[in-house]
């Protein structure tokens, strides 16, 4: 089985520091006030982006069950059919691609409420994943 894990680098250190405390960070442009995914360092206009915390609540936009090779058993669907990968819309409006571990793919509905959890896959840095809320 996989012992996949994520290690931090300098650019991702603030993100993983927050993740270890259970907080999800994204990026915000001071000039445009728009939100961007964690990996983006500058906005299209070239402005530096700042880290900003979000609530970690979202709705489900779309999802797939990827039957390709799983990168970690901790990411598998409840029925073991594959890794469920989705797009969620944060309450703040930004979309994020995210793994949806342990869910029952047949029970998912577009627009349903989701919440962030953090998984330290293989004992590495914690990764934000989303699961049904409530």
């Amino acid at each position, binding site marked *: 089985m996989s012992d996949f894990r994520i290690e931090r680098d300098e650019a991702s250190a603030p993100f993983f520091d927050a993740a270890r405390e259970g907080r999800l960070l994204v990026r915000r442009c001071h000039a445009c006030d728009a939100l961007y995914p964690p990996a983006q360092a500058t906005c299209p206009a070239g402005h530096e982006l700042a880290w900003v915390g979000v609530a970690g609540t979202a709705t489900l936009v779309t999802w797939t069950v990827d039957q390709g090779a799983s990168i970690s058993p901790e990411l598998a669907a409840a029925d073991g059919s594959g890794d469920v990968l989705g797009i969620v819309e944060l309450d703040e409006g930004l979309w*994020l691609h995210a793994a949806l571990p342990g869910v029952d793919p047949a029970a998912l509905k577009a627009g349903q409420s989701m919440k962030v959890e953090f998984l330290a896959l293989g004992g590495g840095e914690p990764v934000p994943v989303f699961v049904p809320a409530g």
Partner: protein
Amino acid sequence: MQSGSNPLHRAAIVGLGITETGKVYGPSAADFAAEAARLAVADAGLTLADVDGLLVSSGVSGGVDIRLARQLGLRDLGLLSQISQAGSTACAQVQIAALAIAAGLATTVVCVHADAPLKPAQRSGDAYRRGAGPVATGFGGLALVAGPRNPNSGYALAARRHMTTYGTTSEQLGAIAVSQRQWATMNPRARFRDPITIEDHQASRMVADPLHLLDCCMVSNGGVAVVVTSVERARELAQPPVYVWGAAQAHPGDRMQRDSQWGLVSGAAISGPKAMAMAGVTPADIDVREIYDCYTYTTLVTLEDYGFCPKGEGGPLAESGALGPGGSLPTNTGGGQLSSFYLWGMTPLSEAVIQVRGQGGERQVPRHDVAIVSGNGGILDYHSTLILGREPR
């Protein structure tokens, strides 16, 4: 638009070369490219000495670049470039060739794409799969976990969104695979020629739910080239010219945030109407549709975006049988990338040339005055459109 008023209308496709395609091992991608170029030039009734422009496109295996000019012994080129736009490259190559010809940069341009990702002891799918090592670093690690990890899951996300928004079903996507396979049974070049049913589609293994194996294109080795020249020269050559009526690109750059239409609407919604306006046609005027079909869903969303049915009604359209042989909207008449061969945008482009010329044999559509060709790349990130006609515009 007035006849001849657009510079793009001064060009025509006069040569087509297709190598053996599929699980063909031995030649490199550059070898396939060279062979395709030679075949296309010969098909046009020209020689390599007549070529003064070369636009190359490389697939996932790499290895096709501007050095192809030297491999072919081309001299005194007025145009030489590698065009890199993923699945939307082929239509863009023809568009750029036509502009260069109109501007006097070149008279006779070979546009070629070749790829050799398949190796004898490897599954086809591995050619496009990103390997995951045991340790990933930083944001790259996040992306690997979150996906999409390959085109299959990327297009599955788009297809699912269409299903939950408009009620499109897997069986309706299957109807596209079935129609295209019906065409492929009449294409000697097609790799998969046995008819399939919706039941076969449903029973095929799930690749990335909701996409089954039969929703996905194959992977092929091979090369395709076309020769583009001026309309004046086109008339003197060996084949019936296929005239460029319209050519557009649209790369939407969707922002992934609230109210995004990502997955539901592609660049085709901009590129298609633009190309059709340039050609002076509407969807009702188009006889043949050659649509980039990396997945059944790509065909569906592109047909909607081009206006062959209202948004959200691609599923019922596919289910009606309109896209298959004898249907009202013949689409992907060679079997497409799902059933024939997969050489990116050259798959639909080559079939459009065959159909407009009237050389489709058993699968020739009766009316073939105007064809639309699409190119699509990334996960619906890049789009290009050509409108081709049997008469000059």
